[in-house]
C-alpha cells in the first residue's frame, strides 16, 4: 500500500507533431491541495485529462490508491471517485441545475406503478441538501442559462460531489471569476480539503497557488521541472521556473501624454436578439495617447460595446463620435476607412477567414482599395508584396508564408498577423479585446509592449479584458462594467485591484 492516493509514473503523451507530456511523474497525497503550474501548452491539462480517462498515455503507469489502473474513460474515472471541473463548463443550458447534476445518475420512480420515469422532485431535494452540506448554495430549480458563471461553476463542483468524487481536479477554475468570487471559491476548495477530499488544481496564477496549495508541480513544454513546497518558495522563483527565464511582471511605460478626444461614446444602449438591453446608457471617451480599459466579468456587455463602436451591432439609442464626426449610422466599412482598428476577442471566428491564405487575411481590411484591386479586379502581386512586408515586420511564422492557409497556423502567429494587420492599417483609434487570450507569457509581453508603443505614438486605445492583471498593467484609465452599465470610470492610479473587483460585481466601493 502506497502513501499516495494518485501516482502518475513516467507518463509520456504525444499528439501529431508535439510531445505534450514527456516522462512526467507526480505523486499526490490524500487530503492535500496539489497545484499544477505552467504556461499554456505546458501539458498540464493533457496530464489531467489522462488521469480523468479522456486520453490514454502512450507510456507510463497510473496508480490510484496504490493500485495500478488503466483509466479507460471519464466514466471509469468517475467510478474511481475522480471528478473534474473543466475550463469550459459542460452544462446543458436549458436544463435546471438539478437536471444537470443528476444527468447520468438519475433518481427514478415508477409512473402508474410500472413505467420508469425520472423523479425530478427527489432530485431537487437531494441537490438542495448536497449544496447546503458543502456551502455551495444554489437553487436546484434555476435554469442554467439564467445564472451567472460563478453559480455555473458551483454546479460543476456539485456534479462531482453528487458522484461522490474523492479526487477533485480543477482546470483553471478562477480564469472567469472576479477577485471576490475567486476568494469565495478558494474558501470552498479549502473546505473540501478539510472534509477529506484531495484537490488537484491546474493554473498559471501564482498568487492563488501561494494562497491555497500545499505543493506545486511546475511543467514547462511537457517536462516536469520541479515539485515545490509552496510555503517555502516565493512566487518570483516559481514564475521563473515556469517560463524558464526571468519574467517581467510589469510592462515599462512612460507617463501618458493625452491629446484630443478621439472617440466619444454618448449614452448608448444596445439590445440583443431577444430585445433585451445588454448595454445600458453607456458613455465614455478616449483621448489620443490614452489606454482606456474596460474591466468586467465576461458577458456583461463589454463585447457588445466594441461591436457597437465598430458597427457590427447597431445601437438602439445614443451616439458614437470619432474625431468629432458622428459615425452612429455609418457602416462597418465606413468606420474602418474612418480609422477604427479592431482586434476582436475571437480570432478564429471573427478576426480572420480561417480558410483564406495569410496574404489574403493580411489584406482583409484593404483588399478593396488600390493597389490590391483595380476597378474590382484583384491584383495578386500586391497581396504578396504587402504580405511579405508584414510577415517580416511582425515576425509572423507559417509553413509557406503568403499562401499558407491561416487555419494551419499557431494561435500566437494568428494573433501576430491580426495585430500586425490592424497596426499597419491607418487609424486613430484601436480596440483590443482580450488580445492575449490563450497566449504564452513571451507573446503576452510582446503584445503588451506593442499596445504601449501604439499609445505612445498617439493612438487612442480601448482595451477590453477579462484579465485584471492585464487591465492594471496597461490602463491609464479604467472603466468597470457590470450588467451593461458602467459602474465607475477613474484614473488607473486611483483604483486598487480590490476596488475594481467590487465594481465588477456591481457592488460600488464605499470610498
Amino acid at each position: 500500500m502506497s502513501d499516495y492516493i494518485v501516482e502518475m509514473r513516467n507518463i509520456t503523451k504525444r499528439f501529431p507533431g508535439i510531445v505534450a507530456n514527456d516522462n512526467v511523474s507526480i505523486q499526490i497525497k490524500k487530503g492535500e491541495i496539489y497545484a499544477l503550474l505552467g504556461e499554456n501548452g505546458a501539458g498540464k491539462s493533457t496530464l489531467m485529462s489522462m488521469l480523468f480517462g479522456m486520453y490514454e498515455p502512450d507510456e507510463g503507469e497510473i496508480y490510484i490508491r496504490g493500485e495500478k489502473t488503466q483509466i479507460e474513460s471519464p466514466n471509469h474515472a468517475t467510478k474511481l471517485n475522480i471528478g473534474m471541473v473543466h475550463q469550459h463548463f459542460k452544462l446543458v443550458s436549458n436544463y435546471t441545475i438539478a437536471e444537470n447534476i443528476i444527468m447520468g445518475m438519475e433518481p427514478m420512480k415508477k409512473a402508474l406503478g410500472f413505467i420508469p420515469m425520472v423523479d425530478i422532485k427527489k432530485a431537487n431535494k437531494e441537490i438542495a441538501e448536497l449544496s447546503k452540506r458543502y456551502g455551495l448554495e444554489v437553487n436546484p430549480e434555476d435554469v442554467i442559462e439564467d445564472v451567472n458563471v460563478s453559480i455555473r461553476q458551483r454546479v460543476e463542483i456539485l456534479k462531482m460531489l453528487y458522484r461522490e468524487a474523492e479526487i477533485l481536479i480543477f482546470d483553471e477554475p478562477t480564469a472567469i471569476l472576479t477577485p471576490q468570487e475567486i476568494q469565495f471559491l478558494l474558501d470552498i476548495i479549502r473546505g473540501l480539503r478539510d472534509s477529506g477530499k484531495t484537490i488537484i488544481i491546474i493554473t498559471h496564477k501564482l498568487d492563488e497557488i501561494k494562497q491555497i496549495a500545499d505543493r506545486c508541480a511546475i511543467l514547462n513544454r511537457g517536462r516536469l521541472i520541479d515539485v515545490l513546497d509552496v510555503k517555502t518558495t516565493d512566487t518570483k522563483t516559481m514564475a521563473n521556473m515556469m517560463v524558464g527565464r526571468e519574467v517581467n511582471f510589469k510592462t515599462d511605460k512612460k507617463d501618458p501624454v493625452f491629446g484630443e478626444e478621439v472617440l466619444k461614446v454618448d449614452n448608448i444602449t444596445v439590445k440583443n436578439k431577444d430585445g433585451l438591453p445588454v448595454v445600458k446608457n453607456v458613455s465614455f471617451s478616449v483621448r489620443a495617447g490614452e489606454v482606456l480599459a474596460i474591466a468586467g466579468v465576461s458577458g456583461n456587455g463589454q463585447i457588445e460595446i466594441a461591436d457597437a463602436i465598430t458597427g457590427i451591432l447597431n445601437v438602439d439609442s445614443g451616439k458614437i463620435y470619432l474625431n468629432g464626426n458622428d459615425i452612429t449610422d455609418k457602416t462597418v466599412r465606413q468606420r474602418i476607412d474612418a480609422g477604427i482598428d479592431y482586434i476582436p476577442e475571437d480570432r478564429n471566428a471573427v478576426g480572420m477567414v480561417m480558410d483564406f491564405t495569410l496574404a489574403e487575411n493580411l489584406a482583409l481590411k484593404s483588399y478593396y482599395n488600390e493597389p490590391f484591386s483595380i476597378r474590382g479586379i484583384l491584383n495578386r502581386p500586391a497581396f504578396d508584396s504587402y504580405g511579405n512586408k508584414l510577415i517580416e515586420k511582425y515576425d509572423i511564422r507559417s509553413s509557406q508564408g503568403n499562401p499558407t492557409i491561416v487555419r494551419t497556423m499557431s494561435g500566437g502567429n494568428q494573433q501576430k498577423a491580426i495585430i500586425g494587420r490592424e497596426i499597419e492599417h491607418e487609424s486613430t483609434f484601436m480596440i483590443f479585446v482580450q488580445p492575449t487570450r490563450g497566449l504564452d507569457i513571451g507573446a503576452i509581453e510582446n503584445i503588451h509592449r506593442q499596445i504601449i508603443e501604439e499609445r505612445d505614438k498617439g493612438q487612442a486605445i480601448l482595451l477590453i479584458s477579462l484579465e485584471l492583471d492585464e487591465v492594471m498593467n496597461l490602463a491609464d484609465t479604467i472603466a468597470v462594467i457590470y450588467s451593461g452599465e458602467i459602474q465607475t470610470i477613474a484614473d488607473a492610479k486611483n483604483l486598487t485591484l480590490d476596488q475594481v473587483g467590487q465594481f465588477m460585481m456591481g457592488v460600488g466601493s464605499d470610498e
Partner: protein
Amino acid sequence: MNSIIIDGLVFALPLFIMAMGGIFSERSGVTNLALEGLQGFGAFTGAFAAVMIGTVSPDMSPTAIMLLALVFAVVGGVLFSLIHALLCIKLNADMVISGVVINILSMAFTEFLTKLINAGIFNMPSNKFVLTVTDKITVPGISKIPILGAVFTNLYIFEIIIAVIAVVAWFLLYKTKYGMHLRASGDNPHALDAAGINVAKTRLFAVMISGAFSGFAGMCFAYSISSSFSSTIYVGYGYIAIAALIFGNWNILPTFGACLIFGFARSGGYKLVQALEMPSSYQDLVMILPYVLTLVLLIFFSKRNRAPRALGVIYDKGAR
C-alpha cells in the same frame, strides 16, 4: 364541415408523426431533412410487403395487411435512416447535404426497384404498387356529437395508432431518462458525454425513431392519398413536416397544432373547389396551399423560434 375534419385529420396525423420523428432527431442534434426520403422508402417497403402478402395469402383481411404493411414500413424507414445516422454521426458529413442526398437516393432507388419488382415478380410493367382499400372505423356514440363527433368518424386504424404513439413519444421525450439524455445531446453534447453517456448512441437511437415514424407516415400517405405506392409519394410532405416542427418550436404539442392547420387548410381547400364547382385544372391552385402556408408561417415563426443549440453541429470530442 364534417368531411373537412375527417379528411384534414387523415392528412394531419401522419404529418404529425413524421414531424415528431423529426423532433426526436433534431432535439438530439441531428438535422434531419431526410424525412422526405425516409417516408418514401418506408412507404415503398410497406407497400411492397402489402402486395406480396396479398399475393401469397389472398384471404387475409385488408386491415390485417395494412397493419403488417405499417410494420414493414417502420422497418424500412429505420433501415434507411441508418444511412443518415452513419453519415451524420460516424462519418462527420454535412447534415443538410446528407439529408438531401438521402431524399434523392430514396426516390431513385424506390422508383427503380418498383419497376424492377413489378416486371420481375408480378410480370407487369407498372411503376406503382396498388393497395387494397381498407375498412374505416366509426366510434359508436361519440361520433354522433355535432362537429366534434367527426373526429371519431371514418377513422383509418393508423389514425388511432398514431394517437397512441404520440402519447408514448411525448412521455419518452420529456419524462424518461432517455428523453432527458436526448434533449441534452441537442443542447450540449459535451455535457452528456461528461455525464458518462454515449452521445453517438443517443443520437443514433433518435435518428432511428425518426426513421420509424417517417416510414409509418409514408405508409399512411400511400393508403390515404392514392391507395398505392409510386414516386408521386415524393411531393415534399417531409419538408412540410420540418416546417411544422419549426413552428412548433421543436416541441411536440405545438407541432401537433401546426399539423392540424396544414391538414384543415388542405381539406378545406379541396372542399372549396368542389363547392364552387371549379374545373379540375383549378385543383392545382389548391395544391399549392400547404406549400404557401408553410412559407407564410415560416416568415412569422422562423426568427422567433429557437432551434436546439447543438443542432447540425457534428459532435467532436476534442472541440469545446
